[in-house]
């Protein structure tokens, strides 16, 4: 569904992404993990057209999107949430979702769109906060609103950037349930995450990034026993009290 070919992105002298090859299959939940600064969010930014790639190409459902603009990519069917929540705090909860709402499954017209927004708010359990200012929501509610807004673009594929960050155990379990429901609805999910409970709980396949390069890819068990992954997370040096 999403094909990433030899993708590089440099910022001045920093190679945030280096000749990355990746494929996300339709209908799967694909997770990307890696230490902080390994380039995960940069990858999302390049895929969604926030920055152009320095090198390499991108395809979505057979169409090349390497130099496409963000809103065009979204209209092709990619939805995205942000790691640091970027809601429209001065808009109501309803409006946050509504501005993103497109005609869904051939149902057109303003009234159909508004009904769809309410459906999405119900799905993300925000129905009773409909007329609240998004800035007044608590953290968990804001995360769910981000998801509702991304869903309103009627995406075939969702890019979720650390959706579980800051969540407690109960919220993570809810999130796992939501993601499974989304997969049942036919959505493909491409996930960046640090919370391993979530990753191991839902991901079909996992890729590990370090310094902008893919160092491992496979199932959860494959990843956990891969020595390169262990080294990337824990470092190769022995930790010594006399030589910290």
């Amino acid at each position, binding site marked *: 569904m999403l094909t990433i070919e030899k993708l590089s992105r440099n910022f001045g002298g920093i190679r945030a992404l280096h000749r990355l090859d990746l494929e996300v299959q339709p209908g799967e939940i694909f997770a990307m993990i890696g230490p902080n600064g390994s380039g995960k969010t940069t990858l999302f930014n390049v895929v969604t057209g*926030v920055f152009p790639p320095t090198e390499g190409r991108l395809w979505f459902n057979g169409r090349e999107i390497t130099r496409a603009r*963000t*809103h065009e990519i979204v209209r092709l069917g990619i939805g995205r949430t942000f790691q640091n929540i970027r809601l429209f705090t*001065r808009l109501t909860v309803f409006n946050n979702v*509504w*501005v*993103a709402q497109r005609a869904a499954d051939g149902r057109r017209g303003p009234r159909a769109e508004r009904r769809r927004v309410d459906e999405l708010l119900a799905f993300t359990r925000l129905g009773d906060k409909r*007329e609240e200012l998004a800035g007044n929501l608590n953290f968990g509610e804001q995360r769910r609103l981000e998801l509702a807004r991304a869903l309103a673009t009627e995406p075939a594929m969702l890019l979720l950037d650390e959706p579980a960050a800051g969540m407690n155990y109960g919220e993570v379990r809810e999130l796992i349930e939501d993601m499974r429901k989304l997969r049942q609805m036919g959505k493909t999910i491409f996930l960046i995450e640090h919370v391993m409970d979530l990753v191991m709980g839902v991901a079909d396949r996992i890729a590990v990034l370090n310094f902008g390069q893919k160092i491992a890819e496979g199932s959860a068990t494959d990843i956990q026993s891969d020595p390169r992954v262990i080294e990337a997370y824990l470092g190769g040096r022995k930790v010594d009290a006399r030589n910290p």
Partner: protein
Amino acid sequence: MDYYVAVLSIIGMHILLGLSVYVVAITGQLSFGQQGFYAIGAYLAGIGTALWGIHLLPAVLLGMTAAGVMGFLVGFPALRVKGLYLGVATFGFGEIVRLVFLNVRYTKTIGGKLVGPNGAEGFRHVSYIYDRGFTQAQYLAVIYTAVIIVAGFVYFLERSKLGARFRAVEEDEVAAAMAGINVTAVKVFAFTLGGFVAGLGGALFVHYSTYIDHQMVTLPLAVSSVIYPMLGGLGSFWGAILGAALLIFLTEGLRFLQEFRLVVYGALIILTMLFRPRGIIDEAMVLRVRAFLRRQVAPSA
């Protein structure tokens, strides 16, 4: 009585200026150049009735359209800059327009008088409405019909998805793009709309005053037009209306303040920014009012 008609007329035209700044401002672009579109509307509508002999309505439409097209053209380079830079750029645009009109000479002798834009001397004898025996009181009705139409249009815009998208763009352009919004189209459309509205204001003004010159459309008008929505509030189009009415009443109505007019303006701006940065009618107030109205309609809901 005549005096109140005059004040209300001025308020009406300034409301249009304020609304033109407002529609652009809610996409996050603060334009200090709307007076340039006002000038375009004024000069072209004036040329229409005074030099080409066409009627008021087509002339006003001509002025509006020219200003609107200019707004469209300005909207594109405006995309490249933000914040103060945009303010300076739009002010620069306004100044270029003003300076162009300062140098334009397009006159005809009609009925023994020299009519038409005449460089530094301005554009006199745009006397269409007075020639036909209309009074200022009757013209007041024309002005406010225009105001109501524009305000109504903006009202519906604000309640629409596009209006919400305007505000989304203001708050976070990247997130807006990620919500599928074509940020460029929204911002350029806002400028175009602002151009139309300001052009309408100018076209109406030149027929009211029969006169326009370059000095009337420079910095003081730029600052006033921005203050109206910033003071009145960015939460709703009512803010621009409130701002224009309030400031003009304050300075015209309180004659003893006339001398201190700008000091009062300046102090008001400072105080508003310190205590209520989004103006009097800000988004929070709009929400409270809407919630209140909803409770009135369905008290048991």
